[in-house]
């Protein structure tokens, strides 16, 4: 259902993943994931090594954060992230590259999976693994289904359906073995259910390579599924629908239909954490754009300032007008080049003004292209009107809260109406109303229970 076909522009697809030299100073945010910000456990002046925990989870939905470099903690202070929001960052002045003992830095592939599932989950948690497909949801939480739900299939998301991005593609080609072992670990943890590695048809080399790796390593129950090229094929709900033929309901989690989805980079991070004791201290970042003279896929230490990465590749060209963290459809515009990368940073895309210009809005011509493009079956033209009228009740009735913010509606609108901008606003209000109702219902239930107890 729905979707659009933007030019895939994978101009960095031939660039091997190269390590970026370590920056002189890194800034590690304590809020790199969905959930409570982590709590720093180092103090200014402390010496840290690569892989050492610098912040601990601030709640159940939280993540460990590790130092990506060795050196001295210079400050722990609020700093603007790439969207310009303030968050506590741990500033570390780099001295050498000394790793914590116990981290296996060799290239040897370790295929023997530990037997104790609890121990595996704990290693994933200790390794600070979060979903690297964009949401940065703590992986160990996703792998602990609530009681009563049952996982029936693990899906490894290798669609990389956003234009320009190639880091998952390169990871599949260059670290295919590790990704497949990571998939096998996830499959084992979820009770040996079947596992599907979903790859879009525009990456035939990766499809062939992963099939060969699965055969070579002799895994049963792990298969590659070739996906149609379409954006947003890699959207979690869309992917589950395409792979399993099941639709996750409004507001429900994938596990409600028996699916657990993890991104390719997350599978690699799971492998590193479980088999190599290596926490997430770096990640592959695609740096690309037609106006950028050098295309690259770099292995970047977490906390590296964006300016340092771009300067390494020759600086920002004069024609670049917008820098996007992520892909052109769902990525965030960077407001601050002094901001540092986080675990979830997958790409830096440089666009010229002509490439990213939004034409002035004109009348809706009721062509229905937005409704055709919406992968959630919504009516963006209607939601846009309701949002502009600030009618949040009607917005909820028309499922504004189901919007996944993929951008297909705005992308396809010939009248250039800022559909998604307005729907986002409505979604925020509707979700707030839903939360308030739930809280009120809970409070009422508790009050009723308390009065019933008092009567006893």
């Amino acid at each position, binding site marked *: 259902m729905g979707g659009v076909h933007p030019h895939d522009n994978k101009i960095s697809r031939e660039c091997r993943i190269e390590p970026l030299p370590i920056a002189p100073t890194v800034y590690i945010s304590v809020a790199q994931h969905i959930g409570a910000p982590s709590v720093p456990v180092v103090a200014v002046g402390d010496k840290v090594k690569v892989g050492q925990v610098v912040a601990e989870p601030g709640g159940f939905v939280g993540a460990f954060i590790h130092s990506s470099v060795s050196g001295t903690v210079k400050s722990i202070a609020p700093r603007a992230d790439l969207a310009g929001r303030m968050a506590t960052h741990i500033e570390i002045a780099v001295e050498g590259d000394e790793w914590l003992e116990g981290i296996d830095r060799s290239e040897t592939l370790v295929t023997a999976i530990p037997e104790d599932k609890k121990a595996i989950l704990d290693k994933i948690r200790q390794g600070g693994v979060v979903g690297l497909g964009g949401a940065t949801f703590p992986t160990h939480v996703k792998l602990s289904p609530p009681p009563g739900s049952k996982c029936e299939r693990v899906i490894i998301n290798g669609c990389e359906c956003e234009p320009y991005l190639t880091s998952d593609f390169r990871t599949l080609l260059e670290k295919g073995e590790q990704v497949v072992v990571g998939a096998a670990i996830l499959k084992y943890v979820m009770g040996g259910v079947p596992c599907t590695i979903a790859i879009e048809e525009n990456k035939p080399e990766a499809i062939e390579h992963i099939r060969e790796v699965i055969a070579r390593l002799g895994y049963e129950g792990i298969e590659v599924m070739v996906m149609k090229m379409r954006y947003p094929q890699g959207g979690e709900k869309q992917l589950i629908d395409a792979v399993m033929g099941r639709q996750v309901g409004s507001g429900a989690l994938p596990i409600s239909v028996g699916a657990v989805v993890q991104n390719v980079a997350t599978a690699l991070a799971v492998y590193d954490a479980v088999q190599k004791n290596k926490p997430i201290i770096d990640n592959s970042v695609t740096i690309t754009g037609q106006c950028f003279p050098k295309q690259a896929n770099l292995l970047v230490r977490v906390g590296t300032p964006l300016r340092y990465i771009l300067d390494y590749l020759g600086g920002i060209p004069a024609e670049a007008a*917008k820098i996007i963290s992520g892909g*052109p459809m769902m990525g*965030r*515009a*960077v407001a601050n080049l002094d901001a540092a990368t986080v675990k979830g940073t997958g790409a830096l895309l440089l666009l010229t003004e002509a490439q990213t210009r939004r034409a002035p809005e004109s*009348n809706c011509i009721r062509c229905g292209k937005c409704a055709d493009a919406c992968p959630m079956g919504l009516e963006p033209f209607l939601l846009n009107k309701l949002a502009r009228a600030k009618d949040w009740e009607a917005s909820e009735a028309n499922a504004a809260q189901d919007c996944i913010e993929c951008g297909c509606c705005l*992308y396809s609108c010939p009248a250039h109406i800022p559909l*998604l901008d307005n729907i986002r606003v409505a979604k925020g209000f509707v979700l707030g109303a839903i939360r308030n109702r739930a809280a009120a219902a809970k409070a009422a239930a508790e009050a009723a229970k308390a009065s019933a107890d008092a009567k006893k």
Partner: protein
Amino acid sequence: MSKLLVSPSPHIHSKDSTRSLMRDVVIALIPAVICSIVFCGWKELIVLLVSVASCVLLEWAITKYMLKKPSTVGDLSAVITGILLALNVPYTTPWWVIVIGSVVAIGVAKMTFGGLGQNIWNPALVGRVFLLVSFPTYMTTWSQPQGLFGADAITAATPLSAIQEGLMQGASVQEIMAKEGYNYGQMLFANLGGSAGEVCALALLAGFVYLCIRKVIKPWITLSIFATVALVSLVFWGVNPDRFTDPVFNLLSGGLILGACFMATDYVTSPMSVWGGVVFGVGIGLLTVLIRYFGSYPEGVSFAILIMNSVVPLINMGFKQKKFGRK
């Protein structure tokens, strides 16, 4: 680079714009325009120029002097209305009649409602029906076209009005068709029409195929109109071939192809969903045949489309697409 642009996603846009879509419709109309000029001659060229110029000028003047807003003529929709209006009238129509038609089309049917996207009825059709009701003589008689440089010859009625008149005089359909010398090959390729746009069915169909290939329109509305007209007239004709015209004649006459390909598919005035479009098309087909067979006007396509335009909001309510993960 001095400053970073910061705005919400998505950061890219498809190449489509209202103007590019409308430009495709204009391109799709070019074969029919060329055919109509070739078959009807220089008078048709004047009809086209008068119609397009008055539609565009009027929209420009209304936005500039009455609404005091930026002009919208750049979206090319007024050009389309102008071409469609011209193709919807016989080439012998006097220029001042066409100007009146464009005033009704652009001034009344389009701009009064708020311009492109806000109108309930297809502007060109409103203009056409206004002329049909106000100036029936100009609109239902035509002269045998004599080609690009020929002189006007015999004045005759359009096939549909000829048949209606003949039936009223008690003749059977076959007798009338034999007398008038209608044949389908001629109707498909050229030279048997009333309005200029009816002169070449193939040119219109070529434009329709172009629009479908370019994904400007979906084919379902048009196809369901054709299918309904064919089926319904097949039933009537099967029951009484003396009284009712046959399906092929109905498909090829009276601007059905022009209406089904270019006017029923107007985004603004047609349903958005595929099944809504099918219902819309079936309604147009049914009404067209019924008006032709039983109405007092010989020709039903324009009325049928306008009537169905009126119920589009209802159809849209009834045919919402299924929301993901919801019953």
